């Protein structure tokens, strides 16, 4: 349940604005890949092209290719809806559906995908997904309560449970801890370590310690100046990026001597 991603010569646009230019990279299955770089360099933009969420924004488009196990996600006969069922996503701000109970939140994606599911299957899936997101013990007595009543960290784990309930191959996370306190952040980081046994994880983070703690590979993005496109500067094993990066810009950034 994890697949490899190959990106080739990807240019990403908002209308006429070239936001990210010429990205090529390989993301290994069952590993955690972190994207780091200064704000505005296109980390979120690039991440959202990996499950075709980028094109949800009016005027947004890409050229180049993103292959999942050799299948181009941007091929003519590929349905973006199907892509998003295979490549799940967790957002920067926790976004459980406020009108749904905790249980219904977990099942939201599943009910879209194969509509009918028996009560016992649903119960099982809710439990396994919430356990998978390390949330089960905290919410098992209040599954029918609204998800918006949980703490921020719990809500984010609920969103992770919701994402893994549809059994994706890849889970994308865009700064999943930036709205959370340190304890909740640690809980999510532990969870990421567990998730990588089953899924390919890609995480955007502005926190270099976090990248160093959770990821196996790290990609550093940078931007030459405002209005210029963001670029992938280098990508390597996380230990290498933080100890002996090949590029000067990477070294400046990871050592905090940036800008």
């Amino acid at each position: 349940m994890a697949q490899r991603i190959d990106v080739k010569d990807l240019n990403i646009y908002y209308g006429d604005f070239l936001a990210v230019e010429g990205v090529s990279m390989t993301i290994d299955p069952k590993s955690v890949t972190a994207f780091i770089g200064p704000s505005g360099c296109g980390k979120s933009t690039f991440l959202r092209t990996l499950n075709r969420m980028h094109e949800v924004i009016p005027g947004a488009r890409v050229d180049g290719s993103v292959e999942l196990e050799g299948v181009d996600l941007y091929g003519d006969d590929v349905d973006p809806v199907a892509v998003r069922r295979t490549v799940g996503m967790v957002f920067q701000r926790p976004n459980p559906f406020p009108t749904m109970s905790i249980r219904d939140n977990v099942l939201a994606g599943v009910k879209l995908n194969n509509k009918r599911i028996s009560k016992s299957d649903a119960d099982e899936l809710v439990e396994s997904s919430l356990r998978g997101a390390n949330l089960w013990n905290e919410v098992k007595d209040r599954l029918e309560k609204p998800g918006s009543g949980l703490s921020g960290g719990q809500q984010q784990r609920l969103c992770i449970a919701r994402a893994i309930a549809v059994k994706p191959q890849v889970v994308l996370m865009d700064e999943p801890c930036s709205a959370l306190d340190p304890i909740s952040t640690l809980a999510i980081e532990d969870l990421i370590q567990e998730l990588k046994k089953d899924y390919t994880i890609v995480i955007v983070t502005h926190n270099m310690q976090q990248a160093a703690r959770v990821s196996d590979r790290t990609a550093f993005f940078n931007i030459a100046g405002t209005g210029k496109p963001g670029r992938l500067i280098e990508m390597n094993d996380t230990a290498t990026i933080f100890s002996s990066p090949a590029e000067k810009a990477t070294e400046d950034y990871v050592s905090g001597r940036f800008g």
Partner: protein
Amino acid sequence: MTTTDSPPDAKPGRLKPPARRRNSGDTERGFSRVFRWITTGSGAFLLLVLAAVAVFLIARGLPALTASPDELSGKGGLPTGMNSLWDLVGPLVFGTLLAATMALLLATPVAIGIALFISHYAPRRAASVIGYVIDLLAAIPSVVFGLWGGRTLAPIISDVWVWIAGVLDFLPFWTVNVTNTGRSLATASVVLAVMVLPIITAVSREVFLQTPTLHEEAALALGATRWEMIRTAVLPFGRSGVISAAMLGLGRALGETMAVLMILSPGILYSFQIFDSGQQQTIAAFIASRFAEASGLAVNVLIATGLALFVITMVVNMGARAIVARRKEFSGAN
């Protein structure tokens, strides 16, 4: 703030009784303070007007409520053949609710559809054109709707009613009567539906547009199609707003006078024969049709029916609030 001494920083020459400062912040000055008076004043004025209307309706309706049956029928307060006020008010309330409910049932789904189309499907240019047309619809006076409904729509739509009545012919215990003039409650309800469409559409559109992108994207990222996204994120978010919109429409449909007056061939019966003429009447249209030539107790009778309309409108609004409040826990306000 707690002292009643003249504050040292108060500017001289300004009307500012020190005692008034107690419940306002020290920083409240000049326009801010005037503005508070204006808002408080308007709020109080609104309540006053409401109370005045209620007092008027009760005071002037009371003679009709307390009059004996003999007086009522004798002095021409009631239409001939009626013995108590309830014989009149009952069917009128029934007719009013029936017309307004049918209008709402017709208008709300269409309004939601248009609002969703404008907010989530249409290209920007088309959306603004449609929005503009809908707003224009709201600006048409109800007399014009009445003329159009009575002259143009009624003869045409009566064919549809005849057809529906034919289809319903299989019902064993009920014969569906239908008039060829089209001057029936069904036609009036269709026109009422058109009249309440703009307000329901406009409010629903605003609510749908306010759906947080966060929740729309959450649904899309789970692999929702556009319609599934609307069902999981937009509609639940907009639910209470749509109910409020529908209630605004219901309020307008309940009170609409001219269109009903000019379309409906009235009767004062408890009747579900919505395709027939001479069956039902609404309160507002009844009052308008009688008020000019009414005198004495008849006026009190009309005002009593007006009181009934007032009460219905209040109950409808409170019901709507209760519905909206019941799901507050899930509203996403936190």
